[in-house]
């Protein structure tokens, strides 16, 4: 069983049932997990910021940095392995904030809003979501079962 590790601003996809895709310690960043149970294709995106207009050049170099460029890239990468949009199961986790959130540190909230807007615009339903609050989350997608697990800092691993 190999672990495919998704770094910050990174995408990993797989159709290998022996693999697990994992991203560690999401803070304000968001992890998007998609899985097509028929094609048995899955993928994970770990994006950092909501909006690619911040730095268009960076977004071209690495679309996975931003929600609005990363989410389409994740879906397209999965299509290339035979996944289809209508069958995709979508789960999201992350977008945490520090305590008594002020304007300056609102990146977690902005990341959540951006992702919901993009899915809504594209008629994609979010099947499960664990976002907000103030803990880190580690997310795993087990390719053998298509199940997604979330572990919060200091907490137990739970299926999402």
């Amino acid at each position, binding site marked *: 069983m190999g672990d495919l590790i998704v770094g910050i601003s990174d995408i990993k996809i797989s159709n290998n049932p022996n693999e697990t895709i994992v991203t560690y310690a999401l803070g304000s960043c968001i992890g998007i997990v998609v899985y097509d149970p028929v094609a048995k294709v899955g993928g994970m995106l770990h994006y950092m910021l909501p909006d690619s207009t911040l730095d268009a050049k960076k977004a071209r170099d690495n679309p996975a940095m931003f929600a609005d460029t990363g989410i389409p890239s994740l879906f397209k990468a999965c299509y290339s392995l035979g996944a289809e949009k209508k069958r995709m199961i979508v789960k999201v986790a992350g977008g*945490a904030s520090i305590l008594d959130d002020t304007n300056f540190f609102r990146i977690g909230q902005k990341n959540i809003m951006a992702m919901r807007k993009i899915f809504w615009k594209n008629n994609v339903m979010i099947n499960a979501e664990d976002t907000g609050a103030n803990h880190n989350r580690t997310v795993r997608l087990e390719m053998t079962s298509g199940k997604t697990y979330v572990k919060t800092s200091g907490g137990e691993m739970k299926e999402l």
Partner: protein
Amino acid sequence: MKALNKILKSIESLPAFPATGNKVAQLLSKPDYSVLQVANVIKYDPSITANILKMANSAYFKSLHKISSINDAVMYLGQKNLLRAIQTAGISKYYKKGAVGYFDNAGDLWEHSVSVALMSHILSKKITGEEDTTMYTAALLHDVGKIIMGEFIREEMKKISMLVTYQHMSFLEAEETVLGINHADLGGKIAEHWNFPVEIRDAIAFHHRPDLLQKSDKIMPWIVYMADEACLMMGIGNGVEGLAQRAVSELLQKFNLRMRDLELSLVMLSEDLNNARELINVI
């Protein structure tokens, strides 16, 4: 309080801070320093020498020449980069064992410390327009208290988590309630034990609450605070602390910054981190 006495006593048992960094800083501050003089101070410390050579060739320092000796490093890195490389190499010694209790992996505290130092560097250039080697050192050391606090935290973790979860304390406040001291204050005391200048001591001791330092003209604690929170938001080395951190609302107005400035700085940090693997991998 018994734990507090034990914690404070542990400071005495820490090995002395390597003098190399301070000696080199003194030499480089003179306008007529010679490459040979500087190289001679560093050569005296073999572990630092090896680490400097490893780091000097990283993409982060952007040297145009291959650096294969300390003389090369002194010639090609430039004063400020050389000092940063020396401080990184010297400080990494203390982080080898990590901080059990806070982190599962020994390397996490060091990765976090380097990231906060890189981010402080980015923010200080953005805010003041200048590079500040002292601030870089303070940022590298901001969590040094954790190397002692770790084992005490481990014993009291249940109590601390209860306070964080049910009383909505920040992790720092819970540490102080349970152990009588928090890791930031303890770090300030360690820096004092090592004879660091007062501005570095303050930046460490107030890195979670810069608003409590009664010297409002000092910007170092604020920048280290901002860099630390930014790295924690990115999930770099949070350990058991998670995001149970206080937001200090004055931050924005104080530096006339917008959310966009922080976001752009995060983009720069991610690029620096890609180029600075050698700095993180020295331990």
